Each structure stands twice: as structure tokens, then as C-alpha cells.
């Protein structure tokens, strides 16, 4: 009983996933009972899921980040030009991830040092970073012909046993790492307390500023990595990279059960949430529903999930 109570959020979200899966299997057996669709899912889910993992830490820390689509595009751009110049995937990845971290540091500077509220600061950096990127790229896309022949490509986007895309393996690794950090590491502890009661955290000797800086840089790194994965899979970079991701990433985090008030969060929930959101559209189309239904169903799933969480939150249980 204690287990169910303690992990009720995780159980709820897992049940929703299983329910949806069964529903889609029933409506379109031909698609959902064969392996192809799952391989397709695994190749796309990581793009938004990696972002959602980083965002979870930011939100648990009591902050917000709206700049990640732009940071993704900027990192993807750097990845592309470094690859076109050097042909080295390894160097390109390093440069891209570094760019992401740099953007994260910019956010941290504005928020921690200057004191701009994070929502506002990151809206600003979103325009700034995207604008700068598009300017440098002269608005043109970049083709990464030849990347598919490299060994690096196999590490980033190759297929294991013709079925499992490498980006999914990376996602799983990241999920485990973040899970351990948030739940069992001092860093995760500091993030929780900073988000829950920054004053108490300060009094108890936690450097709130350093914690917030850390969290924004990590988010930048995640955005950079996601940009790398997209560029590798598509063998292309477009100036619009990351644009449609904003709401999907937020939806993934919140239906996963992380509280918008900070202090509490679940990496597992975000992971499952990402899968659910990404599944819905393809499931609907396969079932023959018009594409016009997608947003509507997103809305239903989100409202249902967050209502459940609100009803079963600690305060309500009376613990």
C-alpha cells in the first residue's frame, strides 16, 4: 500500500500510457501490432524528450526556460558548420554542446546575476539567440551530405538490430542519469530545496545562485544535444529547427506529474509523458481520425492528467 501511495504519480502516468497503447492497438491493429511504428517513435521521441528532461530540472528548481527551441537551433547551426568545415562528427558534437551550455550560461547570467525573472529573461534570449542564428545563417538551410557515411553518425543515429535508433539509447542513458541526480545526489537535493524554499536553502548553506546557474547550463547542454540528434537524423539543418517543440516539451513535463510550483518533480514521469505526447498524433492518424483532432486530444490528455495530479497531491491526501 505504501508503495502505491508513494509512487502514485508514476503509476498514474504509466497507466495512461498503457491505456492509450491498448486503445491504438484496438483501433489500428495493423499499425500498432507490428514493429515499424515503434521504431519510428523511438527515432523521434528523443528530440523532445531530451529537452523535457532538462526542463524538468529547471522547473523543479523553481524556474522557467522558454529559450530552448532557439538554443537548439543555434547548437544545430554550430554542429552543421563545424561538420561542413571539418568532417568530424566528434568535434561538431563538442562544439554544439558547448554552444548550448554557453546559451544556458547567458540565461543564468541574466537571471542570477542581473535578477531578471526567468520567464521574461528566457523569452528575450529566445528571440535574441534565434535571431542571431538566422542572421549568421543568412536564412539558409545547411545540408550535411556525407554525415550518414560517418562512424559518428552511427553512434548518434544508427539503428541497432535494424530496429532501435541510437538516439533512443542516448535518451534512456540520460533519463537514468537525471533520475539518479534528482533523487539521490546532493545536486538534485539542492535543486529541490532551491525550488521549494530558496530562503531556507540559503540559510542552510546551499548556494542558491550556483544551483540555478548549474540548472540553466544543463538545460542549455540538453538543448544542444537535442539539436545534434535532430541534425544527425535529418542530415540537414533548418533555421526553423525546434520551432514546433515548445508546447510539446512543456506538455510532456506537466502530464508527467512535475509540479509547476517547483520543489517536486519526476524524471520518470517526464520520460513517459514524452512518449505519450509523441504517440498521440500518429495513433490518431493511423486510426483514421482527421488531423484536426490532434490538438483536441492533446488537450484532453493534459487536462485529465493534471487534474488527477491535483486531486492526489500530498496536501489532499492529508499526509
Amino acid at each position: 500500500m505504501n508503495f502505491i501511495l508513494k509512487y502514485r504519480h508514476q503509476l498514474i502516468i504509466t497507466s495512461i500510457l498503457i491505456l492509450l497503447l491498448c486503445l491504438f492497438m484496438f483501433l489500428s491493429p495493423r499499425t500498432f501490432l507490428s514493429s515499424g511504428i515503434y521504431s519510428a517513435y523511438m527515432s523521434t521521441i528523443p528530440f523532445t524528450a531530451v529537452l523535457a528532461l532538462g526542463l524538468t530540472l529547471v522547473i523543479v528548481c523553481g524556474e522557467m526556460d522558454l529559450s530552448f527551441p532557439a538554443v537548439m537551433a543555434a547548437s544545430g547551426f554550430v554542429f552543421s558548420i563545424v561538420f561542413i568545415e571539418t568532417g568530424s562528427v566528434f568535434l561538431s558534437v563538442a562544439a554544439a554542446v558547448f554552444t548550448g551550455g554557453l546559451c544556458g550560461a547567458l540565461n543564468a547570467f541574466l537571471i542570477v546575476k542581473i535578477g531578471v525573472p526567468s520567464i521574461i529573461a528566457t523569452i528575450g534570449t529566445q528571440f535574441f539567440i534565434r535571431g542571431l542564428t538566422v542572421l549568421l545563417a543568412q536564412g539558409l538551410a545547411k545540408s550535411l551530405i556525407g554525415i550518414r557515411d560517418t562512424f559518428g553518425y552511427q553512434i548518434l543515429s544508427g539503428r541497432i538490430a535494424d530496429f532501435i535508433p541510437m538516439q533512443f539509447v542516448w535518451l534512456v542513458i540520460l533519463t537514468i542519469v537525471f533520475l539518479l541526480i534528482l533523487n539521490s545526489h546532493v545536486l538534485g537535493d539542492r535543486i529541490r530545496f532551491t525550488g521549494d524554499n530558496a530562503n531556507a536553502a540559503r540559510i542552510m548553506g546551499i548556494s542558491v545562485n550556483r544551483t540555478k546557474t548549474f540548472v540553466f547550463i544543463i538545460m542549455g547542454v540538453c538543448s544542444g544535444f537535442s539539436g545534434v540528434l535532430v541534425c544527425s537524423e535529418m542530415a540537414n539543418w533548418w533555421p526553423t529547427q525546434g520551432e514546433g517543440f515548445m508546447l510539446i516539451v512543456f506538455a510532456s513535463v506537466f502530464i508527467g506529474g512535475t509540479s509547476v510550483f517547483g520543489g517536486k518533480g519526476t524524471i520518470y514521469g517526464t520520460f513517459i509523458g514524452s512518449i505519450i505526447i509523441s504517440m498521440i498524433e500518429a495513433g490518431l492518424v493511423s486510426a483514421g481520425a482527421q488531423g484536426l483532432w490532434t490538438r483536441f486530444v492533446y488537450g484532453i490528455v493534459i487536462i485529465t492528467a493534471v487534474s488527477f495530479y491535483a486531486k492526489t497531491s500530498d496536501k489532499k491526501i492529508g499526509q
Partner: protein
Amino acid sequence: MKKIFLALTVFILIAAPLYAEKMTRTGENIEIWFDTGGPAGGAYGTVVYNGAKQAGFDLGAKIKFMYSDWSPEKMIENFKTALAANPDGIVVMGHPGDSAYAPFIEEAEKKGIIVTCVDTPLPSLQENYLSQGFGYIGPDNYNQGKNMAKESIRRFGLKKGDKVFVWGLKRLQTRGLRAKGIIEVLEEKGIKVDYLEISPEIDKDSSLGTPVITGYVSANPDVKAMIIDHGALTSQMENFLRASNIGPDKINVAGFSLSPATAEAIEKGYVDLIGDAQPFLLGYLSVTQIVLTKKFGFSGLSIDTGSGFIGKSEIEKIKPLAKKGLR
């Protein structure tokens, strides 16, 4: 003898039809996944959708529709999903470009799925898979652009030194050729071109375009013509000009793609010339392509739908069709 002959005749008359080849609809039992390109409910995509739907009905084929917000990544995502469903055919748009699509289309062709392209071509892939039914239905972007410029010069009486505003999508690989064609022809004639790139936000949501037009026109009151390289934005030009306090027939406006709003605007004089890619055909003929190739093994067909020009004189006839989303 006569009786036997009579009985035989009756028998043949009755039996023959039963043994004769029954005509069935060509597309029966064929499933096609169709990416309409834009956002769900977008003006241009809806006409494409209507064409495809009609073809599906006429041929008896089942069509499943996808939407991609004009995002190349989304188009590839959608393609992967379609691939997993193992349909008979997939219709794509060429925005992502040959190299991005290559491995996925290759996989599809290996599985025996027929792929064909509309709206923006994929030249290298089309060449490779022509015999497997890979065709192209749509405007030739570059020519369409050049023709639009020529037509504008003719109809608007543009001369050397005149200022013309061009709002386009140069950044997209193939789609950008249309803007390129327009600018080339205009500059060749010594016309001063003010080019502005359509931002991704405005590309997706044309209601955001008002300040751009207002800003430009107030700063450049001497502009002779505006060429809008975007269907949804063209349809909004009446609203944009009204908001900028500019009456009809004050500025020459040319654009692309018909829609009920655009038809109205032409009638009222806010828009003067339309290049029509005839999106209904994109939907209709691409579905037909796949069905014919599946049934009879025909190769890919290239059909240039971009030669339509519509102005005030032609609008009467076309308007009712635009209202129904058929043109």
C-alpha cells in the same frame, strides 16, 4: 429448333454479363498516406486536401491525411510514421530536400511503397524512382516565379527604376526558387527590388503580417507593386492594406494561390494578379498517380500546374469554385 435457339439466346443474354469482366474502381483496397504540408485548416492545404479526398472517392481508395505546419522536420517525422503503417503509397512535399528524405524514401521503395511528390520537387529522388511511380505534380517554382514577374511587368506597366516589394521564402531550398525567379526577372529589367524574407512565425500564422506591410508601405509610399510569394499571406492582403489605410487599386498587388478571401480581394481590387498552382490538382492527380502505378505499373508523371494566372477579368468564373475550396 427455334425453341432451342431462343433458349440459347436468353441464356447467353443472362449469363454473359455474369461472366463478363466486372468493372471495379481502380483504387479499391488501396491505402494512401498524404501529407498536406501546412497546418490543419490552412487555406492552401485545404484545397490540396479536397482534391485528394475527391480522387479518393472517385477511385475508391482510402486516404489518410497528415499535417506538418510547413516544417521540414515534421514532414520527415510524418513520413516515418506513414512508412511504419506500410500503406500502398505516400504523397510527400519536397520542402526538406533530396538529401534529407533520401534514406527514408529509399526504405519505403524497398518495401514496395509507391512515393510521389507534389508542390515542391525532389529532383534527384524523382530521377531515381521514376519507374516506380515517383512523379511530380505542381508548379515549377523557378519558372512560375519568372512568369509571375513577367506577367506583373506586363499588367502593371512596370518600368526601369520603379520600386517593387517582394515578400518571399528564399531560404527554402527548392521553394525559394520562385522568389529567386521573381527577383531575377525584375532586376534584369532595372527594377529596384526591396526583398523581405517571410519569418517562420508569419509563414505559419499569416495574421501576424499586418505590421510588416503597414511598416513597409508607410516608409515607402512610392512603391509601385508588391509581389507576395505566399498563398496565405496573399489572401490576407486586403486586411493588411485596410489596416494600413490603403484603398484598393492604390498599389498593384500580385500573389499566389486562390482562396475565397483572395477571390474577394481580387474582385474588390486589393489584389490584382494571382499565380495559381491549382492545388486541387496536386491532391487529385497525385492520388491518381499512385493508384495507376499500383494497379498498372505506370511510371511517374511530371505535370506542371503552375501556369494559371488570374486577374480581375478572370475572377468571375473562378470565384464560386474558390468559395467551395476547389480552386
